C-alpha cells in the first residue's frame, strides 16, 4: 500500500512539472505581451517598453523565465505585473470568495444527480426515465450564459430578490438574519448555474452505471433470495456502482473552475474566475500562470485522493 501511494504521488509530481512547462510555454509563446497592453497611449515611449520588459525579465530566454517564475513562486515573492501585489495572497483571497460557490455547486451536483440517476435506471424506459433523459440533454445543450440570464430574470421578477454580486450593496449594517438570507440568495443562483451541466452529466453517468450493475448475476441472486427491491438496489447494486464515481470527483474540479470564469462574470462574483479573466485581459502572466498551475494542483490532488479511496475500497486495485 505504501509503495503504491509513493509511486502514485511521484507520477503526479512528474505530471505537475509537465503541466507547468506546458502552461508556461503556451502563455509565453502566444503573441501579445504585457508591455504592449496599451500601445496607443502617447505617453508610452519605447524606453518605457524596454524598462517594463527588463523589470519583468521578458528579455530573458524562455527557460530562464521559467526558472525565475518557479523560484519566485516558491519564495512567495511572485508579484503581479499589473499592480505589483504579491500573487499568492491575491489568489488566495479570491479563492476564498469562490470557495462557497464551488462547495455549494458540488453539493448540488452530487445530491441531485444520484437520486435522479438511480431512479431512472430502476425504471428504465418509463416516462420518468425518458423525461429525465431529455431534460439532462436539454441542460447540457443550453449556452450557460443564456440560461443564467433567463434564470436571473425569472428569480428577480418572481421573488423580487437581488442575485448579482456576493451581497446587496450597503447591507453591512442590516440585521444578521437579513444578511444571512441575503447572502444565501446571492449564493444559490450562481451555484445552481455552475452545477447545471454537472448535474446533467453525472445523473446520466449514474444511470448507466446502475444499469450495468443491475444486469449483473449477483443482483439477480439477491433478487432470487427474496430480498425486497430497496435493499437489492441500495445495498447490493448501488454499492458496487459507486466505485467509478470516486474518480469522477477529482475530474470534475477543472470543469468547475472553467465554469467559474463565465458564471462569476455574469453574477459579478469577485472570485478566482474573474481574477483570472482580468489577468488574461491585462496579460498578467504571473497571475495567469499561477492560477492555471493551482487548478492543476487541485485536480491532481483530487485524483490522488480518489486513487487512495479507490485502493482502500477496492483491494483489486492494489495488486496491479
Amino acid at each position, binding site marked *: 500500500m505504501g509503495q503504491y501511494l509513493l509511486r502514485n504521488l511521484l507520477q503526479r509530481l512528474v505530471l505537475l512539472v509537465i503541466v507547468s512547462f506546458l502552461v508556461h510555454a503556451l502563455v509565453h509563446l502566444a*503573441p501579445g505581451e504585457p508591455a504592449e497592453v496599451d500601445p496607443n497611449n502617447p505617453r508610452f515611449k519605447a524606453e518605457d517598453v524596454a524598462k517594463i520588459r527588463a523589470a519583468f525579465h521578458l528579455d530573458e530566454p524562455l527557460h530562464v523565465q521559467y526558472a525565475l517564475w518557479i523560484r519566485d513562486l516558491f519564495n512567495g515573492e511572485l508579484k503581479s505585473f499589473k499592480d505589483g501585489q504579491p500573487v499568492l495572497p491575491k489568489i488566495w483571497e479570491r479563492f476564498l470568495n469562490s470557495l462557497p460557490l464551488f462547495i455549494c455547486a458540488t453539493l448540488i451536483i452530487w445530491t441531485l444527480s444520484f437520486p435522479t440517476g438511480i431512479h431512472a435506471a430502476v425504471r428504465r424506459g418509463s416516462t420518468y426515465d425518458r423525461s429525465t433523459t431529455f431534460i439532462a440533454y436539454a441542460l447540457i*445543450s443550453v449556452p450557460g*450564459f443564456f440560461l443564467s440570464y433567463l434564470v436571473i430574470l425569472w428569480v428577480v421578477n418572481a421573488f423580487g430578490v437581488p442575485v448579482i454580486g456576493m451581497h446587496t450593496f450597503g447591507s453591512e449594517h442590516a440585521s444578521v438574519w437579513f444578511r444571512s438570507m441575503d447572502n444565501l440568495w446571492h449564493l444559490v443562483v450562481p451555484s445552481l448555474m455552475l452545477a447545471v451541466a454537472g448535474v446533467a452529466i453525472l445523473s446520466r453517468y449514474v444511470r448507466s452505471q446502475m444499469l450495468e450493475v443491475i444486469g449483473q448475476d449477483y443482483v439477480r441472486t439477491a433478487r432470487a433470495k427474496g430480498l425486497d427491491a430497496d435493499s437489492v438496489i441500495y445495498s447490493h447494486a448501488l454499492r458496487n456502482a459507486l466505485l467509478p464515481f470516486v474518480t469522477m470527483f477529482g475530474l470534475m474540479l477543472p470543469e468547475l*473552475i472553467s465554469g467559474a470564469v463565465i458564471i462569476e462574470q455574469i453574477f459579478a462574483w469577485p472570485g478566482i474566475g474573474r481574477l483570472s479573466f482580468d489577468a488574461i485581459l491585462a496579460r498578467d502572466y504571473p497571475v495567469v500562470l499561477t492560477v*492555471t498551475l493551482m*487548478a492543476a494542483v487541485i485536480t491532481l490532488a483530487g485524483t490522488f485522493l480518489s486513487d487512495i479511496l479507490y485502493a482502500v475500497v477496492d483491494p483489486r486495485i492494489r495488486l496491479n
Partner: protein
Amino acid sequence: MHAQDSSTGSLIAHTESPWRLFWQLLQRDRLAMAGLGILLALAVVALLGKATTEWLVIFDPTTVRLVDKFRAPLSEASALLPDADRPLTGVYLLGTDELGRDVFARMLQGSFVSMSIGFVAVGISIAVGVVLGGIAGYYGEVRIGPVTVDTLIMRFTDAMLCIPIFFLILVVVALLPASIYNIMIVIGLTRWMGISRFVRAEFLSLREQDFVLAARALGLPAYRIIFWHMMPNAMAPVLVTATIGVATAILTESALSFLGFGVQPPFATWGNILADGKNFIFDAPWLFFIPGFAIFVIVLAFNLLGEGMREALNPKLQRR
C-alpha cells in the same frame, strides 16, 4: 463491434454488417432520429445560407438601416428606405438589430459559420487525437531514452486533462489576434484528449488480434496496418465523441463570444448574435431569444444523435 458474434448475434452476423446493425438500432431511438433529422435540415439551411448571403446576395446580412432599428419580427420595412436596402418581400422575418441589420439574414449567414466552426474544430481534434492515440497504441513499447513512447504521449495527455480546458482556450484566444480560424484551431487543439485515450485503448486490444498479426506476417508497411486495417475498427467511439464534440465546440464559441473573444465582425455566428443580443434583452428580446433558442436546438440535436449512436454501438445493449 466484435462482441456480437456470440449467442444470438451470430445469426445476424452472417447476413448483416456491423454498420447495418448499428443503423437498425439507431433507427429505433426516436430522439436520436429526431436529432439526425434536425441536423440534416440544418445542413441544408447552412448551405442555402452560405449561398444566399454570400454568393448570390438575396438576404443581405450587412446592410445597415438606421431608420429601421429594433424592428420586431415580421414587421414591415420603413417606406423611407431606398429600394436597394429593402429586405426581400419588404418584411423582416426575424426583426432587425441595433443597426437595423436583418436578423434573419444574419442568422442564415451565422448558421454556416457556426456549423463550420464546430466541424473544423472537431476535425482538428480527431486528427490530433487519432494520430497521438494511434502512435501510443501501436508503437507504445518503443523506447526513447528512458521512457516509452506510450508513457510520453499519455503523460502529455494527462497533463492536458488537468488544465481547465475553457481557461486554456481563453488564455490562448485572448492573446492571439481574434480571427475565426484561430478560434477553430484553438478549440480543436484543446479537445483531443478523450479521442486519443479511446483510440489508444482500442489499438492496444486490436494489436493482439489475429488479423493484425496476419497483416504483419504479410509484410505490410506499418502505415497500411495502422490506417487501413486497424483504424476503421477503432473509429466507432471516435465518431460518438466527434458528434458530441461539435455540440461542445458550438457552445464554446458562444461562451467565448459572451466574454468578447468570439468570432469578430463582419462574420456573424449564432454565438456572437446571442452575445450582442444580451444587451437588448428588454428592448428587443428577439435578438436574445432567437439565437439562444437556435443554438439550443442545434446543440441538443448533436447531443441526442451522439448519445443514440453511443447506445447503438454498445455491444452489451446490442445483444439484448
